[in-house]
């Protein structure tokens, strides 16, 4: 990176505010390149997205299947989120020995998406009590270079915004079947989702991971930085500015509330950037 490490000349007693004002570049984007490809990165899936923040790459694909809804919630479908770290993504992942981060990020992702109430599971219903959509969202990490949760969340959100429901109809046995493009089947019933083929996303969550080190805050760390400095804070905000989740799993640095508030402030800016980025990509796709 071209930015010189001038901050090391200064005393380590410097306030976080001063640091932020003097070295805004180090405070914000660590990575020069960002790209999202919510343009059908996977052709065989119902929704997919390939997201790269710096070198960290995540490929998400959503596959829909029809299932019978549970007894307690006959009007709701289901969204199953799974995060995978295959051995290609990092030298520390070995086959047969899943990475430590894998189930952690997986759980964080499911929790964040369900608590953000981005998706109304009722939209996944087909026939009340009889049939509903089961959406399997699989996030594959293709290159693990830090800030895994941020990139995973962004790619899950991008894939959900790209998701298109397959067309279905009920056949004579009362079972739901997929309808192919050719008109080969009698349509006894047109389900509701025939008109509304995309999911409505309410408030979309975006996140930012920061590392706390002495009095510094490093936003969007790379894997190398994460391995050296262990205290990280992940903040998830939604587009309306509400705090959805705050995650600081221990670490050697004890943070003052001011540091956490600074992290929230940077995250707020990040949310604006990511939102406009996602909107641009989505509208570019529709063209």
């Amino acid at each position: 990176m071209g930015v010189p490490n001038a901050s090391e000349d200064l005393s380590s007693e410097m306030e976080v505010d001063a640091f932020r004002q003097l070295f805004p570049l180090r405070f914000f984007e660590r990575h020069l390149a960002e790209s999202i490809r919510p343009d059908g990165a996977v052709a065989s899936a119902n929704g997919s997205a390939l997201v790269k923040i710096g070198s960290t790459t995540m490929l998400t694909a959503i596959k829909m299947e029809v299932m019978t809804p549970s007894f307690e919630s006959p009007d709701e479908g289901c969204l199953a989120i799974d995060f995978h770290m295959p051995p290609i993504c990092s030298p520390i992942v070995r086959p047969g020995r899943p990475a430590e981060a894998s189930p952690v990020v997986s759980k964080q992702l499911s929790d964040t998406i369900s608590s953000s109430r981005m998706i109304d599971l009722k939209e996944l219903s087909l026939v009340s009590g009889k049939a509903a959509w089961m959406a399997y969202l699989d996030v594959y990490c293709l290159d693990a270079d830090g800030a895994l949760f941020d990139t995973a969340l962004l790619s899950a959100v991008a894939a959900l915004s790209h998701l298109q429901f397959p067309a279905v109809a009920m056949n004579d046995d009362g079972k739901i079947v997929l309808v192919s493009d050719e008109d080969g089947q009698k349509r006894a019933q047109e389900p509701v989702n025939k008109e509304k083929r995309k999911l409505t996303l309410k408030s979309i969550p975006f996140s930012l991971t920061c590392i706390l080190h002495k009095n510094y805050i490093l936003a969007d760390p790379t894997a190398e930085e994460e391995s050296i400095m262990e205290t990280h804070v992940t903040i998830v905000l939604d587009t309306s500015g509400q705090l959805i989740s705050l995650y600081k799993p221990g670490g050697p640095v004890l943070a003052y509330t001011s540091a956490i508030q600074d992290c929230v402030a940077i995250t707020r800016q990040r949310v604006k950037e990511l939102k406009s980025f996602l909107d641009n990509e989505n509208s570019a796709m529709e063209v």
Partner: protein
Amino acid sequence: MEYVSPEGLRLDGRRPMEMRQIRAEIGAVSKADGSAIFEMGNTKVIAAVYGPREVQNRSQQISSHALVRCEYSMANFSAGDRMRKPKGDRRSTEISLVIRQTMEACILTHLLPRSQIDIYVQVLQADGGTRSACINAATLALADAGIPMRDLVTSCSAGYLNSTPLLDLNYGEDSAGGPDVTLGILPKLDKVTLLQMDSKLPIDLLENVMQLAIEGCKAIANYIREILLENTNQLEYRRGV
């Protein structure tokens, strides 16, 4: 079911001797020592090579050669229906073994004793010919990692349906029940390293179908050489040579 129309066109509009479009990219995974993405039509595969590095399991270390390991896995969403068990099932284990033995034959393992070379292949989209795409991607990834090899290994499949030899089968043609010949060769040395065949094929036709597959492999080898050359030019340019 007609796989070759009377005009000589296949299900996807190709001619019997026509391969699908190939596309390759080197260096897709920054964390890996070598990596590549290889696409053959709709089949898309990503390979990453880590090595040579220290052997993780000391008891498996070989004092005169490098240890080559390979893992093949398919993403949950890669095939038509979502897969429950993408690796560890019999097919994946078999293909992992096949790829490992194929690549091991061409890596100069005696030059890297007491080390380990890991080849990981992940199928992102499967539309027939995943084995071949994996081998081609692994070759590129090994070259990107700078691992010494005797020659490139390229692979292609061929079959025989409706009395016509077909090159590079896609999933529809592969599941038609006809013979499926997968071939892996060292193009410069003109040696066959992998040959697998399913179903039944009259022995006098085997020669034909194999020859067709060899042509396919040679075409892929030419493409791979172009990609590697282009990559080297890029590296030179970045170094300011």
